[in-house]
């Protein structure tokens, strides 16, 4: 009987330890998810910037490339 009680106490300890680790894991996963979302938003911003760059380059290219060569 004592043996069984000892066993149950050991399981309890392991469960509590696992529980703590799972809480930490959960925090880490939430953080990683949030960071990934930030990365994706930054990518969206880059896409907008690219479109703007392209828009400002196109007329310059058109104008300067048509200039008479020396």
């Amino acid at each position, binding site marked *: 009987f004592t043996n069984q009680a000892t066993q149950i106490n050991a399981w309890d300890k392991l469960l509590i330890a696992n529980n703590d680790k799972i809480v930490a894991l959960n925090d880490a996963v939430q953080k990683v998810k949030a960071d990934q979302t930030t990365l994706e938003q930054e*990518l969206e911003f880059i896409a907008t910037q690219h479109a703007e760059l392209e828009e400002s*380059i196109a007329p310059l290219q058109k104008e300067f490339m048509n200039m008479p060569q020396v």
Partner: protein
Amino acid sequence: ELKWRIKCQEKETEAHNQYLSKVEKDLTELKQRHAATTARIMEYRRKLAELSHRILKVIVKQESTRKVGMALSPEEEV
């Protein structure tokens, strides 16, 4: 009493197991998002290289035509 504790422990373990499966799924999804992000970054790097190249050509052209239409400088007149 012991039986009851064992029951509780079983339930707790089952809950842990389910949560861990959810984390596994989350991680799979995160890896997919990560792969998509990597692909987009590669695309943007290519795009930037292309834009840089285009603007460089414009700069070269502009430099070579800078003096067209300007009065000759004294040195050039001599």
